[in-house]
C-alpha cells in the first residue's frame, strides 16, 4: 500500500491539468481570448495609427474593466457546469479534499487568464520598435495585471461555486469585479468618513499605483487578501454543499 501511495500524484495538479485540457480542447477559450485581443487591439492600434502614439497607457487604463468582463467568462463554467451536469458527484466522491479541488481549478483558471493576457506582450514589441517606451510602467502594469487576474479569478471561481447556472455565475462575478473596478469613480459622492475605506477596496486604485511602477506593500496586501478571501469562500461553499 505504501509504495502505491508514493506513486500518487498530487490531486491538485491532476485536476488542474484536466481543467486546462478541457478548456483548450473546447471553443470557448479561443472565443473569449480572441475577443479580448480584438477589443484591446482596436484600442491599442487606434492610438498607434491615429495619434502616432506607441504606448501602453490606454491599454493598462482599460485593463481592469476588460478583465471584469473577460475573466468571469472564463471562470463561469468551472463549478456551475459540473453542478448542472452532475459530474461534481463523481469528482467529490474521489479521494480528494475540497481544498484540492478548489486549488486545482483555481490554478487552471489563473493559467487560462494569463494565457489570454500573454499575446498582449506583442504591443510591447510594437511599442519598442516604433517608439521608446518607459519600461517601469510596463513591468508594473503587467505585474498589476497578474494581481488583478489572480483576484478576479478567485471572484469568478466563487460565483461559479454557488450556482448551477453559468449565466448567473457570469453576471455575479462581473458585478463584483465591476464594483471593485469602478468604486473609485463614485468616491466624490461619498461622505468624507468612508471615502478612505472605499478607496482602499477599489481594485483600480491599487492597480493604478502598481502600474505606475510603485511597489507598495499595501497594494500587494490588498490583492493577496482579496484573492485569499474569495478562495476561502469557494472552499467553504464546496464544504457546505454537502450539508
Amino acid at each position, binding site marked *: 500500500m505504501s509504495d*502505491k*501511495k508514493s*506513486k*500518487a*500524484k498530487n*490531486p491538485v495538479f*491532476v*485536476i488542474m491539468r*484536466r481543467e486546462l*485540457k*478541457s478548456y483548450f*480542447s*473546447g471553443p470557448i477559450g479561443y472565443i473569449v481570448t480572441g475577443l479580448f485581443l480584438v477589443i484591446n487591439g482596436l484600442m491599442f492600434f487606434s492610438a498607434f495609427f491615429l495619434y502616432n502614439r506607441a504606448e501602453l497607457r490606454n491599454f493598462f487604463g482599460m485593463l481592469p474593466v476588460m478583465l471584469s468582463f473577460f475573466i468571469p467568462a472564463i471562470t463561469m463554467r468551472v463549478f456551475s457546469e459540473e453542478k448542472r*451536469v*452532475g*459530474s461534481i*458527484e*463523481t469528482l*467529490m*466522491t*474521489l*479521494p*480528494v*479534499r475540497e481544498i484540492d479541488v478548489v486549488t486545482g481549478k483555481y490554478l487552471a483558471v489563473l493559467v487560462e487568464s494569463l494565457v489570454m493576457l500573454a499575446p498582449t506582450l506583442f504591443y510591447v514589441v510594437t511599442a519598442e520598435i516604433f517608439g521608446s517606451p518607459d519600461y517601469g510602467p510596463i513591468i508594473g502594469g503587467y505585474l498589476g495585471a497578474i494581481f488583478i487576474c489572480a483576484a478576479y479569478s478567485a471572484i469568478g471561481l466563487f460565483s461559479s461555486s454557488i450556482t448551477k447556472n453559468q449565466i448567473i455565475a457570469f453576471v455575479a462575478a462581473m458585478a463584483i469585479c465591476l464594483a471593485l473596478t469602478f468604486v473609485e469613480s463614485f468616491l466624490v459622492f461619498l461622505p468624507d468618513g468612508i471615502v478612505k475605506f472605499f478607496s482602499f477596496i477599489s481594485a483600480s486604485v491599487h492597480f493604478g499605483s502598481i502600474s505606475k511602477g510603485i511597489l507598495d506593500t499595501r497594494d500587494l496586501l490588498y490583492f493577496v487578501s482579496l484573492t485569499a478571501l474569495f478562495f476561502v469562500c469557494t472552499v467553504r461553499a464546496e464544504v457546505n454543499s*454537502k*450539508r
Partner: protein
Amino acid sequence: MIEVSHVSRSFGNFRAVNDVSFSIPTGQIVGLLGPNGAGKTTTMRMITGFLSPSDGQIFIDGEDITKAPVESKKKIGYMPESASLYGEMIVEDYLKYIAEIHGENAAEKVPALCKECGLKEVMSKNISELSRGNRQRVSLAHALMHDPEILILDEPTSGLDPNQVEDVRAIIREIGKTRTVIVSTHILSEVETLCSRAIIISGGKVVADSPIEELKERFGHELSVKLTVGAKSFDEVAALLKTVPDVDAVNLVKNETAGIAGTIQVLVSVNGTAEIRPALCKKLAEKNVDLYEITLQTNSLEDVFHALTEAK
C-alpha cells in the same frame, strides 16, 4: 465493513432519510430496494461522502467517515445513478485521469479495465457521443479503478439492453465474491438473482432488512395455488377447499374470470411447501365443481415489496 448508525438526512423541511441503520459485512452483495424517492440515492450519497448526514454516523471499517473523508473515499468505488461524466473528454483520457487521481498505474490499469468492462471499441470516443449503456460502463470502470473494498452502485443496470444487463451483473457477481457491494435498484428480479440480502427502504425508513429467502418466508407463504372454478358463491368454494389438508387460507381474487359467467378465481395459500394440486383437483371433482384453470405460484420478492411499500 460498512456501518450506518441512526442516519437521517433532511433537505429543508423534507426528511429524505429518517433514522436508517444497517451494517454490512465484507463479502456481501446487498440490494437496496425501494420505490422512487424512497431515499436510496440519498443513503448512498451519504455513504460515499458526497452528502453529510443531518444526524447519525457512518463508519467504514470502524472509522467515522466525517473524521477521515479521504481515507474512507479511497476504500469506496462509487457509480452514481446519472453516470454523469465529463462529456468533452475521450474515454481513455478520462480513465487515465481517474487512475492518476487514485495514484494507480494508468498504463497497466486502463487497458485491463477496458477489457473487463467491454470498452474496447469506444476508447477513443468522446464521452458525450456514447450511448447510455456505454456511459454506464465507463462509470463502472471508474468505480473499479482502484480495486475498492466497497463498491456502491446506484441503479447500475438502468437503461441497458438485456445483454448488457447480464454483463454488468456478471461483473458485480464476480466482485461480490470478495468485496462488499451495495446495489440500489427498483428492479426486483435483479435483487433476487444478484443479492444475498435485501434492505427495503420506503419513505426514508428501513422497512425490511434480511436475507432474500427469509424475506419471502416472513412476508407470505412460499407457495399458493390460483384456481378458476365454476361456482355460484365464494363462500361455498372456500368452505370446500378448506377441507383439503395443508390449505391455510382461501382468498377471493375476482368473480367472472376472463368473462366466463359463473366462475370465481380464488387464491389458496399453502402451509409449508406441500404439493396440494392433485388433492385440490380430486376434491373439486368429487363435488362436481368445474375447474377451468389451476396454477402454482411461488411468492416473489415483488409481492413482498408491494406488501411492504404500499402500506406506507
